């Protein structure tokens, strides 16, 4: 197979575009400043806040975060590229994270993953056409007593069997946790829905892998 090249010469960040981080998000990020000795230490909290608000961390947000924290944008890219939990491309409204570690594998997790792929008609690291679901796998979620288990956004689903998958996907609140939330990191205060709509056109492209496949 020949190398597929993607044209990355067009500017990823348009300097004239209006900022993507709203004031509420900025206030929230700034509220973390006095917790740490350096502003850079606010980077992980900032990325969480931005991803909660926008659904992902676009390039322009990285530049704006760098500005807020008085670090270089490349520092943000360096950090963000290390962690699996942050993504730079839009994902589905709900991200399904299936555990693939040993307890879940012994208890039949692989079959659940296969069933999910079949019903959603996508492969790992992909997003459904309607932008509803993305599917990823992770190592142990520390829920092994409930193996096989998976997360849909924040909610852990326990002892999932392949025959439960259809019902699970049909549930409206399958991604919401019941415990009272602390105000910290609460996405609902950041008008998640409005923000993700502006990026709606991009939905469907989940990763470079997908991009490369489409270029093929």
């Amino acid at each position, binding site marked *: 197979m020949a190398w597929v090249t993607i044209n990355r010469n067009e500017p990823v960040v348009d300097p004239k575009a209006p900022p993507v981080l709203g004031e509420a998000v900025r206030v929230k990020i700034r509220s973390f400043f006095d917790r740490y000795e350096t502003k850079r230490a606010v980077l992980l909290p900032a990325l969480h806040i931005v991803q909660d608000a926008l659904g992902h961390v676009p390039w322009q947000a990285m530049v704006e975060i760098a500005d807020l924290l008085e670090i270089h944008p490349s520092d943000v890219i360096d950090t963000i590229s290390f962690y699996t939990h942050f993504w730079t491309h839009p994902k589905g409204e709900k991200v399904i994270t299936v555990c693939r570690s040993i307890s879940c594998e*012994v208890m039949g997790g692989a079959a659940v993953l296969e069933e999910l792929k079949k019903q959603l008609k996508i492969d790992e690291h992909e997003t459904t056409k309607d932008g509803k679901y993305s599917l990823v796998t992770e190592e142990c979620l*520390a829920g092994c007593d409930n193996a096989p288990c998976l997360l849909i956004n924040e909610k852990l689903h326990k002892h999932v069997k392949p025959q439960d998958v259809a019902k699970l996907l049909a549930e409206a609140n399958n991604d919401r*946790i019941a415990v009272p939330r602390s105000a910290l990191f609460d996405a609902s205060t950041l008008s998640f829905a409005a923000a993700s709509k502006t990026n709606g056109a991009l939905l469907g492209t989940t990763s470079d892998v997908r991009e490369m496949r489409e270029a093929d």
Partner: protein
Amino acid sequence: MAVFEPVLLRNRDVEDSTSLSVYESRGGYGAARKALKMTPVEIIEEVKKANLRGRGGAGFPAGVKWGFLPKDRTRTLLCVNADESEPPTFCNRVLMETDPHQLIEGTIIAAYATQSQIAYIYIRVEFHEQFHILQRAVDEAYAKGYLGKRIFGSDYSLECYLHRGAGAYVCGEETGLIESLEGKRGWPRIKPPFPAVEGLFRRPTVVNNVETLCCVPHIIERGADWFTGIGPPHSTGPKLFCISGPVKRPGCYEAPMTITVRDLIEREDMGGGMLPGKKVKAVLPGGVSMGILTADELDMKMDFEDPRKYALLGLGTAAAVVIDDATDMRMVLRNMARFYGTESCGQCTQCREGTAWMHKIATRIAMGAGRIEDLDILLETARNMGMMPGLSICGLPDGATYPIETIVNKFRGELEAAIRAQAPERAKTVLSVLN
């Protein structure tokens, strides 16, 4: 023998156990009040005397670690390691979701003993529910004046902040955790300097596991002698054990470190035996990084010393997963190899390349295209990485060595037979796909 009364899990089944009022009504925060009337040195001496060994995996005595802080320091930081990412470990999760104030109380005492100004609780991001439970508990403690300025009306002030991780196993390693807290990639640091001398923001820093800190209030309340009275002299105090896999009652159980792997699987108040029709084939008794036991080795004691007699690295996280006889060991081998291959942070050549190659080889074997000599290549690779041969920055590749080495050594017959039974045509196809 007297029935063991749970200590760390004593509030687990109490209604509303996460609220401050219920915790306090059951004697909670008494130890913290008592501790703040003691001197920091007195607390450290008591914890040393109790021989509280770290529950995070390495088993290093907590009191000794606190004693390493330089005397002339002006600022000290405490990091609570709630990153719990070692498969199949979930005891810290249980502690946080059922009794968050116990952790906060332990944190207060440890922070006072080390004279820390700030305690950061680094919690893995997948713990969504636990994050909100713990954050609410912290908020409650602040509101009551148990955290913040002049706690319990004393001269001591402590800030306590939760910090969420972002999905990386290596951020559980103490210096990886520190780098991650500083907003960087979770790349472990070369030691020395050890965190006690130069850690977070280059300040003297102590990193302790959640369960370690949960033991501290009980030591202060009931004394070191009570603590050393539980379990053998080298493995004192109550301990949480996790059991998962095809057993009747997977879960987290508390006991002295006198129980055996067999107890954990079979006792009615623990695993409750295997599910109908399932038989034990192997057990990974201490998290995945400690290595594997065969069904003939279930008499191993779950303490800090005994595992070495079975060619294991140590007690690890004391979380056991049972592999049943219907499971193909090639699958287990691949699952282990993949974990370390994807979680190596890539700074050190031996670890990055070694774990990646083990993953490739184990995948090939699992897919039916293995070669007999692959088993020796796996062993050789495993032995040539890690801190123990002195070739890496952190302990991750040592953790990768033990499961691979013990699976290959203890299940060599089965693996060889499986490789010999491969269909040559399939092997060819697999290789052409993988290459």
